């Protein structure tokens, strides 16, 4: 395998995402924009799941990124994406470095629930310190700028910028997963004893992956803040974390295409569900999730793969599992 070999699947996905906005109505492009920044957050959750690590608190980082934008806009009036994305990433990174010190010690149930506890602390703080955070009203973010020029959420420019950010992030995650650490992460799921008996610290593997996931959560939050234009404490709430996990599960977390499919499918489900069953959103999520767990554990990506195999065209590519 050559060093920079980009799977054909990634190129196809890029081409599709590049062309589709030109031919579909504007609201679909907006839904895709949302799917793209969600995808960045879902990647973090999916990568952790590759190590068997489930988190119910990823919204912690998402909200960290979002409120980084909120505070910057509020105090400095800066709306610059090229400044705020690195800043949001840094905020997510720092948060993950601190929280990860504790989280790297735990697995399974404890990992999932302690993450949840941390995100609930942030949620509580966002509500309680309302003179800084705006409390339940949240903060408005206004319009983002790119190199000083306003970039309206819902415009073509905004969509392609989000696509570019998602592309960069995907590449970083792809490299991470192909690196020794990425394989050690898969091995954490398999056999921690063998890793320790190789002289590697399992905790370091988990810690670094946690930091990667936290940083991605921060980036996702920055994009969310500008796309939606408004941030609220619910960005840190468990329902938001649950939605990240839902997307990873729906798309399948075995490779990189899964989280993307999951995020896109999720955004469309949400769009239609809020129209037809506005009161039963969580129930919709729950029922679909139950269905995936019981009948299609690999998610949409696995479904697609088996469909391809079944048709017999022998489509190859994508990240190997």
């Amino acid at each position: 395998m050559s060093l920079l070999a980009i799977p054909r699947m990634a190129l196809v996905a890029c081409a599709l995402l590049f062309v589709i906005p030109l031919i579909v109505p504007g609201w679909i492009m907006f839904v895709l924009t949302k799917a793209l920044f969600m995808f960045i957050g879902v990647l973090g959750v999916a990568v952790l799941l590759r190590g068997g690590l489930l988190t119910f608190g990823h919204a912690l980082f998402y909200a960290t990124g979002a409120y980084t934008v909120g505070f910057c806009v509020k105090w400095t009036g800066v709306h610059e994406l090229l400044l705020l994305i690195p800043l949001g990433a840094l905020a997510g990174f720092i948060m993950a470095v601190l929280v990860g010190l504790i989280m790297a010690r735990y697995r399974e149930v404890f990992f999932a629930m302690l993450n949840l506890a941390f995100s609930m602390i942030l949620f509580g703080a966002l509500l309680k310190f309302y003179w800084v955070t705006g409390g339940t009203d949240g903060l408005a973010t206004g319009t983002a700028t790119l190199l000083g020029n306003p970039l309206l959420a819902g415009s073509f420019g905004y969509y392609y910028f989000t696509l570019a950010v998602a592309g960069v992030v995907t590449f970083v995650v792809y490299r991470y997963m192909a690196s020794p650490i990425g394989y050690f992460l898969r091995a954490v799921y398999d056999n921690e004893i063998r890793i320790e008996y190789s002289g590697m610290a399992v905790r370091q593997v988990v810690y670094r992956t946690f930091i990667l996931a936290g940083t991605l959560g921060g980036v996702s939050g920055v994009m969310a803040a500008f796309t939606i234009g408004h941030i609220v404490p619910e960005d840190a709430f468990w329902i938001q974390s649950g939605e990240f996990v839902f997307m990873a599960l729906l798309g399948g977390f075995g490779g990189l295409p899964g989280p993307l499919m999951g995020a896109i499918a999720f955004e469309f489900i949400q769009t239609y569900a809020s129209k037809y069953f506005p009161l039963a959103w969580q129930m919709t999520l729950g029922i679909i999730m139950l269905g995936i767990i019981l009948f299609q554990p690999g998610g949409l990506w696995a479904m697609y793969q088996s469909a391809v195999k079944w048709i017999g065209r022998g489509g190859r590519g994508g990240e190997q599992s």
Partner: protein
Amino acid sequence: MANNPENSFVLRTKDVFLSFGAVTAADNLNIEVSAGELVGIVGANGSGKTTFLNLITGYLKPEHGSILVMGQETTGMPPRLVTKLGVARSFQVPQLYTNLSVHESMLLSLAAESGKGGGFWKPLHRDPWEQQGMETLERFGLETYADRPVSELPGGGRKLLDIALSFALKPKLLLMDEPTSGVSVENKFQVMDTLVNVLKESDITTIFVEHDMEVVQRYGRRVLAFDNGSVIADGEPEHVLADPEVRTAVLGRV
């Protein structure tokens, strides 16, 4: 350093003691192993053989006593640090990465051996690891399985891979826990021949635990017989295995 007598031993335990409730698993063990030795440990089930390996590698901590590896005190160190000092081990039940391929598992051992684990940006599949990995697999006769998932390996192959993963760490001391358990009777000598040849070439001090007397007799240069957590005989295989006390202890209750 050179005049320190501790250094002439690859492994030295001093009064190492551990008990599980009423059962004494290690009863003041004083064992010395010099560089280049090939030591077989025999004993009945529950005689403390595996516990001995777990103690040396830091998986279990002794209640008292001390363990020295290459003259360095390792008592209380976790397995990861003991491994870094040059002690590798295989397991009675192979500890493998069941969802990776055989070759990828090997690459992970090489990445771990390289010091910092190989980082998070350059790919795992890189030279010279690719080539070294294949070479090691060839030495253990596993090259045909290289790209297969570990879960598809047959029992003997799992055993060999488990040892090959430890071997790839370039240890100074290799501990093998029942290398032939789970291997069919026809294959056990073949597995041992492969192992002993590889070890002889690379000059690694080896301790192997084995309940199969035949294997110990054939391959061990020195044999320790364990009973109730203590060493009841230590010497050349012919003498130790002929000892009636050893025969009752090891074979008397299976």
